């Protein structure tokens, strides 16, 4: 895609400092870049583990995620996902993996976590990078600040505490329908803004 280089998304992607650092790790095994990523994302992943009930394994999860980042960084493609999105999916998958391993006494897992939850950019047969994809992380960040607190609270519980919508409803003592409608309102807002700015 030669036209890609002329789009603002392309320069935007290159300007994202974390994606640049991650590329350096992938291409040159750059340990300084790796350390900078650790300083930024390590505490986020530790908090994530603590929030979702894995407090006693929080640093173990951070380690697993960072070893995985090192090993996979050569596969990272900034055109497919921002570094933060890519790292989030790795943290999510490592968490699922750890839980699966803790729950099974037999190591019998016919389907691997990554068969079910893909890391963006790996094993994809989509050669064309969608603009939508390049912009999505930045757009989400911008539009999230416009959402009312009650919607953000629900989304945070779903993503950080890994609670189902039903569990969130029970905890906040509101009907399931209300939780779902808050999520839908929030997602509509995110999507509408995405559409507005992409068309």
């Amino acid at each position, binding site marked *: 895609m030669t036209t890609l280089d002329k789009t603002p998304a392309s320069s935007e992607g290159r300007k994202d400092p974390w994606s640049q650092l991650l590329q350096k790790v992938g291409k040159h095994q750059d340990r300084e870049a790796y350390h900078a990523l650790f300083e930024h994302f390590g505490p986020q992943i530790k*908090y994530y583990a603590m929030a979702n009930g894995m407090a006693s394994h929080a640093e173990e999860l951070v380690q697993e995620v960072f070893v995985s980042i090192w090993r996979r960084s050569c596969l990272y493609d900034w055109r497919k996902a921002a570094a933060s999105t890519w790292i989030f999916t790795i*943290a999510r998958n490592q968490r699922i993996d750890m839980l699966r391993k803790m729950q099974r006494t037999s190591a019998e897992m016919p389907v691997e976590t990554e068969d079910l939850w893909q890391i963006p950019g790996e094993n994809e047969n989509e050669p064309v990078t969608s603009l*939508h994809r390049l912009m999505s992380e930045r757009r989400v960040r911008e539009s999230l600040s416009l959402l009312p607190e009650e919607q953000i609270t629900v989304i945070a519980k779903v993503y950080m505490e*890994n609670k*189902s919508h039903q569990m969130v409803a029970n905890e906040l003592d509101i009907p399931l329908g209300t939780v779902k409608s808050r999520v839908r309102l929030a997602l509509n807002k*995110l999507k509408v803004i995405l559409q507005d700015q992409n068309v």
Partner: protein
Amino acid sequence: MTRHHPDSVSLMEYAAGNLSEPHALCIKLHLDKCPLCRSRVDTLNSLGAVMMEQQPKVSMSNDMFDSILSKIDDETAITDEPEIAPAPRVNPLQKLLGENLASLPWKRQLGDVSVLDITDRFPGQKEQVVLQKLAAGGKAPAHTHRGEETTIVLQGAFADQKGVFNQWDFVVLTDKDEHKPVAVGCEDCITLSVLSAPVKLTGTFTRMLNPFIR
């Protein structure tokens, strides 16, 4: 081209990593064939990244980074190639069931309906997971659903009063949905369904293993 998609709430639960393996499998099979939902999941993955970024900062152990470095050094020392190649793309359904759905040990139920319970392929899950086959041109008797049933069409198509569900279409039915599916087209219609475990206070779990006719 699929017409019936998972709703945004389910896609969010998927992106957050909150779904059980069988539910995630249904979503993943749909995503593999649906660019629209893939782009929704991209956005939802970014939402996860932004949520993670906005949480309070916590401190790390001092020696944490060093121990990560020594771990990767150990790995590099063992393998000559520190870089990993992308694993070959696998269809998780094929991994579970093999290539040929027709040759599975189907159990004939009433009339045109056959089923295969594959719950045991997902150890430790609470849900029941079943494959259902409606013979080409066949009809299933009218029925409702207990609890919630998530279904993806793996082959062929079926129709009911809500419309036609083609290959890779996604549908969620509840106890409020009574339907009378008919296999349309010249192929057997095969679906994968995940049944939420109903809350049972007493007694044993005696449930007909046939979501087409319950």
